[in-house]
């Protein structure tokens, strides 16, 4: 919505295609607060935040097709085949923004031994059951993974009267925002067990329990630490993966972000294709996603009117301790905000882009919270002159 609004605002004839009947995507199921603190300086729920964006979109004059799915896109031209209840339509454009969000890593990807019963849900699915459909997934639940949505679902299920026996995290530190650890777990007395995971699922038809095990620093189970926990519900918050299904056969993806390689304009390696939001890399805050979307929408509109030439870009190279990195390349002379996710927590960290171009000190760097580094036009130009532009997060 932010991309479409931004593009329409600068005069581009803009069409937004949305698979669901309602606009807002995952925001509509996120009925908890914490949205909009940066963008609107207000504490909004997900649907409230979406409602604001819907209003901005409507005012922008962009055309909106809901209940419409882009089936095929490109690769040679910005043409999409779209299906909806009115039939199939071919849409021609000058530029496309791919902003399809992310999907949840399924239980099958974890290869947890045991049975395959009902009662194992990804956190987002459980959230849709509870918040959209008004259905309770089970009676006694364990959450695997301390990503934000796992933490939020632990609280949500607790509030609906489900016994939440705890949240397990494979790593020795929580995956979600600190504020969510406090507000979702501590405030409700829900236990967070770091360096623990589920090693076996039990129950043929419905989940009857899980075996929980402690892991060592390499994530390997510690023999003898097995413990059986009776639950009928397992909620998984084990990773969001950028949605790239329609573009991945022909667009260069960043293996760590999971989404398309994008430059400072959020342009992919295909000049007419831009990508934004969680489809590029999973961001922490919807405020950031909206900001990024606006930039991509603006750039797409400029491309559509022939005002965004394709030039050399400068690929960024990750050094140790850098996970997500957006964008993955720079446009020389264009001011750019880098979003950098550290792989492990550091009490004091130096974020360096260069070598020797930008060096910033950050206190309390955590994998759950991306560090933002603003690069000026001069700095991106300077980085372009280096043999290799590197991004590094190291202890300070």
């Amino acid at each position, binding site marked *: 919505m932010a991309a479409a609004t931004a593009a329409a605002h600068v005069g581009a004839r803009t069409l937004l295609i949305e698979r669901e009947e309602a606009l807002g995507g995952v925001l509509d199921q996120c009925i908890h607060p914490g949205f909009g603190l940066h963008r609107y300086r207000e504490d909004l729920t997900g649907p409230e935040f979406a409602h604001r964006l819907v209003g901005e979109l409507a005012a922008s004059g962009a055309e909106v097709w809901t209940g419409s799915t882009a089936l095929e896109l490109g690769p040679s031209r910005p043409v999409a085949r779209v299906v909806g209840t009115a039939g*199939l339509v071919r849409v021609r454009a000058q530029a496309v923004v791919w902003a399809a969000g992310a999907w949840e890593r399924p239980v099958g990807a974890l290869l947890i031994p045991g049975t395959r019963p009902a009662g194992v849900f990804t956190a987002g699915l459980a959230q849709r059951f509870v918040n959209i459909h008004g259905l309770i997934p089970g009676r006694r639940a364990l959450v695997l993974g301390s990503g934000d949505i796992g933490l939020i679902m632990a609280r949500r299920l607790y509030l609906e009267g489900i016994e939440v026996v705890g949240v397990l995290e494979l790593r020795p530190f929580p995956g979600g925002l600190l504020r969510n650890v406090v507000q979702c777990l501590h405030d409700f007395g829900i236990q967070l067990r770091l360096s623990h995971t589920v090693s076996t699922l039990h129950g043929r038809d419905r989940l009857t329990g899980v075996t929980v095990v402690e892991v060592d620093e390499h994530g390997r189970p510690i023999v003898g630490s097995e413990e059986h926990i009776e639950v009928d519900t397992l909620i998984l918050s084990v990773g969001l993966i950028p949605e790239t299904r329609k573009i991945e056969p022909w667009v260069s993806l960043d293996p760590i972000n999971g989404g398309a390689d994008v430059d400072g304009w959020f342009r992919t390696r295909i000049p007419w294709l831009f990508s934004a939001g969680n489809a590029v890399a999973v961001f922490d805050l919807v405020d950031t996603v909206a900001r990024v979307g606006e930039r991509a929408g603006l750039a797409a509109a400029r491309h559509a009117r022939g005002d965004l030439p394709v030039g050399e870009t400068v690929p960024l190279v990750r050094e140790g301790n850098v996970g997500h990195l957006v964008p993955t390349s720079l446009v020389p002379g264009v001011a750019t905000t880098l979003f950098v996710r550290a792989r492990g927590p550091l009490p004091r960290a130096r974020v360096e882009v260069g070598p020797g171009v930008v060096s910033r000190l950050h206190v309390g760097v955590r994998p759950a919270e991306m560090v933002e580094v603003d690069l000026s036009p001069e700095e991106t130009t300077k980085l372009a002159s280096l043999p290799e532009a590197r991004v590094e997060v190291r202890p300070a």
Partner: protein
Amino acid sequence: MRVAVVGAGIVGSLIARELARYEADVLLVEREPDVGWGITKANSGIVHAGFHDPPGTALARFCALGNALFEQLALELDFAFHRCGAWVLAFTPDERRVLDGLLNQGMENGVPGLTICPPDDVLSEQPYVTPDVAAGLWAPTVGITEPWAVALAAAENARENGADWHVGEAVTGIAVRTGRVQAVVTDRGRYAADVVVNAAGLWADRIAAMAGLSEPRLAPRRGEYILLDASARAFVRSVLFPTPNPHSKGILVVPTVDGGVLLGPTAEDVSLDAKRATETTAHGMAVVRAGATRLVPALARMPAIHAFAGLRPESSGRDFVVGPTPVRGFYQAAAMRSPGITAAPALARWLAESISAEFSLQPKSRFISARKGIPRTADLSAHEWDALIERDPHYGQIACPCNGVTEGEIMEAIRRGATTVDGVKFRTRAGFGRCQGGSCADRVLAILTRELCVSPEEVTLRGPGSALVADRVRP
């Protein structure tokens, strides 16, 4: 003339369909909540060429015959079948010699097109195979299918021709008097029968025992599988076998008809009464990964989306137990170990013909041989799809984004008998893709609730005891 077929797997369903060609009342009884949910649901889905089996066995005979029937059957019953061919890969001189043996065995079994190729040929056809491959046996007639889809198609076609299905109903006894079958007794009723066909898969030994027979003696063998994300498909064009050992065909790399890649199976003998021991194990999955990586190293990096295990009915004789028995009217279609799926169409035809000869059945004057599958919008032309949407706009609503399954397809699956989330999944592939239902399970549940006029708490994943949700948020 009344016939009861026990077991609606691929074997029983195809037998029911073949018997439905004749003037007979055919009843298909299945203990699982849906068609094709036993052995048929969890195996490699391969239509074998017939070079793996010793000449002279029922395995070899029905495999070669069955393989040749699949194209026609897939056309008649409208299920996915691709003859993608297979390579058996050898990495050592010893394995190379085994390939010679397989080639000779295959030729004796009448398998067409087998050739042994040097490494260069293997690698030019399959560029991602381990480069130190010593040789490959190419078998062009090997195919891939969805065995449960074959079972569903056959059962639907049998029904259209007058047969009945009873799913979720377990046979508890076979009434035999003076050496003749009288009736089938289930947990819900008693059905008089002149003929009973035992196609009960892993439970065929129990069914046979109910008729007083000591064969087959079955030993479940567990096979664990890992399903990879469709992105792995770039590395695999045909079915890849390692050189077989005396125990099993080994860990395979199998392209699936819906565009994924399946790895497995392991071959682990479980206890004789462990007929539901379909748990996966850490060891088994490690064996699968290692075995597949030995054939195609690049697969080590490819993400998994699902793991599962199936049981196959090994028997002491290592051959099918098929045909008439000393109990008049009691027929076996049992111990259908690999290549049971391949053999099923030929076996079904042969068995139905033997029964019709023995009981002088008359062919139906009007047998409908063609069955139309649920429209798969993802495979339709724009014109066909548009026409479908015009008839029913639900075909324009994508419910499963991974596989592009529309609400219309899900509703049609329910009309044809799906009552569970898995029932929808196996009929439409909704929930079969990379997110494994994370994006669509709630929508499928809502459609099931609406179409079956039940409450959400009554909708199950795969039958009694597997409810998806427990309650409403507010009463």
